[in-house]
C-alpha cells in the first residue's frame, strides 16, 4: 500500500531546481507530482514518478543526492471538509504526520493526498478501518 517517493537534495543556488528536472526530462520520465520543502540554506525536492528505479539511477548518475522513501497515498473527497475528516481519523489514531502534500490528478470529486507518516503501517490500518481509500502503487501510478 506504500508508494515509493524520491527526494532530491537541493543546494540553495540558482539553477539547482531545474537540474534534476532536466535529468528526468532527458530520460523521458514524467513527474506525476512533486513537492518542494525549503529553508534559506537548502531544499528537498520530493518526487513521485512511475519508474522510480530508473529515475533514481538517472538522477544519481547526474550527481544528485537521492533518497527513496515510502509514503502513503490517500483518497480524500474533493469537497469542503474532506481533508479535515481525514486528518481527524489520523489524529484519533495517534499517528504522526511528518509532512504531506497534494497529488496533482485530474479525477472527479476526489483528491489524493500524499502523506509521510511516523508509522505508515499503523496509519494505513487506522484509515482503512474507517473506510478511507488508501491507494496502491498500481492504482495511483495508473492514474
Amino acid at each position: 500500500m506504500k508508494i515509493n517517493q524520491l527526494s532530491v537534495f537541493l543546494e540553495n543556488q540558482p539553477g539547482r531546481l531545474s537540474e534534476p528536472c532536466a535529468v528526468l526530462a532527458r530520460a523521458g520520465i514524467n513527474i506525476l507530482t512533486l513537492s518542494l520543502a525549503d529553508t534559506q540554506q537548502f531544499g528537498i525536492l520530493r518526487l513521485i514518478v512511475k519508474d522510480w528505479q530508473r529515475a533514481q539511477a538517472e538522477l544519481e548518475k547526474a550527481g544528485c543526492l537521492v533518497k527513496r522513501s515510502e509514503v502513503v497515498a490517500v483518497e480524500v473527497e474533493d469537497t469542503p471538509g474532506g481533508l479535515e475528516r481525514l486528518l481527524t481519523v489520523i489524529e484519533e489514531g495517534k499517528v504522526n504526520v511528518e509532512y504531506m502534500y497534494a497529488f496533482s490528478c485530474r479525477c472527479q470529486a476526489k483528491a489524493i493526498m500524499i502523506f509521510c507518516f511516523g508509522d505508515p503501517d499503523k496509519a494505513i490500518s487506522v484509515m482503512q478501518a474507517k473506510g478511507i481509500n488508501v491507494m496502491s502503487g498500481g492504482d495511483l501510478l495508473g492514474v
Partner: protein
Amino acid sequence: MEIENKIWDKNECLSRDELSALQFRRLKDTLSRAGRVPYYREVFQQCGIDPSNINSLSDLKKIPFTNKSDLREHYPLGFLAVDRKDIARVHGSSGTTGKPTFVAYTEADRNLWADLCARFLTAGGLRREHMVQVAFGYGLFTGGFGLHYGIERVGASVVPVSAGNTPRQVMILQDLGADAIICTPSYALQIAEVIEEMKVDINSLNLKFGHFGGEPWTEDMRTRIEQQLNIKAFNNYGLSEIIGPGVSGECICRKGMHIQEDHFIVECIDPATGQEVAPGEYGELVFTSLTKEAMPIIRYRTRDISRIMYDGCECGRTTCRMDRIVGRSDDMLIIRGVNVFPSQIEEAILQVEGVAAHYLIEVDRPHNLDEVTVHVEMQPEFFSDKMSEMQAMRDRLLHEIRVIANISVKINLVAPRSMERSFGKAKRVIDRRVEKGIL
C-alpha cells in the same frame, strides 16, 4: 569635542635610562618568579639562564619565545607561579581544542590591571565626572571586567550593560546619558546602525567618546564610528595572556597606542625568523610581563602584526607606541572579537554524525558585524526527505560550533563531493573582509 591631555601615572613619562633601569630591576624579579613555574625552570636550565644572575635587559633575548601552544599544553593552570590560594581571578580566551586558555590574577595583578586600564582611559579623555556604558561582554573574556575596573579606578561611573540586545543598549544610552561607550569597534557600528533604525536623534545622546578594542579595526572604521556616533574614538590593545586590555592604548594624539613599558617589555620580530625587526617596521609583537605575579609570561608571541614607534609623542608620554594591528601571523580568525581557529570549526564538524570533514569557512562583514558561514558537505546516507531531520543535523552543527569555537555561524549544507578538492592543504577559509580590504 576637545579632550585635554592628562597623564595618570608619572611612570608613563620616564626617560629611556630611567625606564631601562626600572625594566631591568623588574625583569630580574619576574624571571625569579617565573622560575617557580616548572615549564620556565626547565627552559632557563636549557638556555643557561640563572634568573638571579642576569646582567642586562638583553639577556632576555637568550630565552626562547613562549607560544600559545605552550600555554595550551599546560592546561589549565600550569603556568601558575603562585599558590592556588593566592589566585584572585581567572579569565580565559578561546583555544583550538575547545578548551579556553586560562590566565590567573592575584589581588595585586587585578589591582595593576585596573591601573593600566585607568591609564589609557585617562589618556583617552575619561574623568571622574563621566559615566561609561560598558558594552563588552562580561565573563571569561577580559574585555568587560578589565575596562570595568579601569573606569572604577578613574572614579567614573560604570553602567555594566555587557554586550548584546542593541535596542536596549540604545535605550540605556538615551535614558542614562552615558558620556562614553566601551565595546568592540564592530559592535559600535552595529549600535550606530540600530540608532539610525530606531530613528533616535544622535544629538539627543550624551556620548562624547568611546574606547574600542578586542579586535583589529581600521582607520576607515574609526571614521565611520566617529561620524555615525558623533564621538571621538580611541583604540586600545591587550590580550589575556599578557593581562587583558591595558597593554597599550591611545592618547589624545592618536598616533599609535602607548605601550605600558614599565610593566611590559615589547619586541617586534619577523614571524618567520624570530629576529627582531628595525623600529618602525612591521612584525609580530612579543611581550614579556614585568610585574605580574600569578602568571609571569616571558617573550610571548602574540601572532599580532604591528610596528613599534619610539619617536616622542606630543602628549608627553615617553613610552613607545604600537600601530594598530594589521593582521595575524597565523590563520586565526577574529570574529566579533572572539579568536576562532579553523581547526576548532573542524573539530566541531567532526562531532556531528552525517556530515563529512569537507568544509569551507566563509567570513564576511556585510553590515559592520562579522558573519561566518560554514559550508559543510553532507554524507549521502544521512540525507533525509524529512525537513525535521535535516534541521536537526544543522542544529547539531550550530550547537557544536557554538560550544567549541564560541561563535554563532550560519550553516550551509551542500551535496556530497560538491566542494572543490585540492591537493595538499585544502583551502578552508575565505575571508571576504580581507578581500574587501576591511581588515
